[in-house]
């Protein structure tokens, strides 16, 4: 390979979908639903949601993930903060519903700014999960 320092040269041309859909058409392997896709995880059948989660290596955030996030950031103080959060939300920490998760995240966003950032990160993870599982459902239904 001849080096041409000032002219960017592809090392290898790999046939794969380009990141943005610049043509307005979906490329091979494209599964993204596009802006405005409703976050309707509830409408995705459980088995399809599980398939999608496995495919993308994602898990629906739960209270345990929130607890782990607090531990990562706050270390030894996380236990007390977690107990206080649960008390404020009226939760016991074993709940599995999406409502419980949303309540917890909403409460975190009203706490100290660092905790609010943790909640924002977890919300992004939840939104990603919803978008990708919904997209997978659409693609699977169409195939």
């Amino acid at each position, binding site marked *: 390979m001849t080096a041409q320092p000032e002219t960017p040269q*592809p090392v290898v041309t790999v046939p794969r979908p380009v990141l943005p859909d610049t043509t307005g058409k979906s490329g091979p392997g494209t599964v993204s639903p596009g802006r405005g896709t409703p976050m309707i995880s509830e409408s995705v059948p459980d088995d399809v949601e599980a398939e999608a989660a496995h495919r993308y290596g994602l898990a629906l955030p739960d209270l345990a993930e929130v607890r782990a996030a607090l531990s990562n950031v706050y270390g030894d103080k996380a236990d007390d903060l977690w107990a206080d959060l649960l008390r404020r939300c009226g939760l016991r920490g074993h709940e599995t519903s999406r409502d419980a998760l949303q309540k917890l995240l909403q409460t975190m966003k009203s706490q100290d700014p660092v905790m609010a950032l943790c909640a924002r990160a977890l919300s992004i993870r939840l939104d990603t999960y919803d978008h990708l599982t919904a997209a997978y459902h659409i693609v699977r239904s169409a195939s």
Partner: protein
Amino acid sequence: MSTVKERLGRLDRMQELTHYDFDAPGLKPALDALSCEATEYFSMPASLTSVVLDSAQIIAGCHGLRNWMQSVAGMPVEWSFCADVVLAAEPFVVTDTSADPIRREHPAVTFEGVGAYAGVPLLTPSGHVLGAFCVMGGEARTFTDTELTHLRELGDEAARLMLAERRLYLD
């Protein structure tokens, strides 16, 4: 040994992040414009400014991103190359993800087709790394020294734009 999330979630770094208003009016359009300039300069399809939190990154500005990444305005750190920039606190380049034994299984590669990536850190005056300014595309490519210098200049400008939104009242 600390996990990625523990390293990204260090309390002093998270506290530094709270000093910035990433949702300030006018910030996103300015960062979008920088990304637009980057995609034209590099002839690459996508560019973004990220703020890397403990378990996900915020996309504070972008050009060329599609669909869910744009809708969510972020992504989990497992999908983020910018997290590597933050952890290294220095420019991070992958010229060919398919030839990189670690990166080729990265979800941004396998599902979104990222073939090449170059990112530079967004440094605060106190030395923390907020996130990264980056370009990416679907095909492998190399980056010249001149290009990486320009990427650093664009990253510095992105950091300056963010610094202008520092919340002084918290100091």
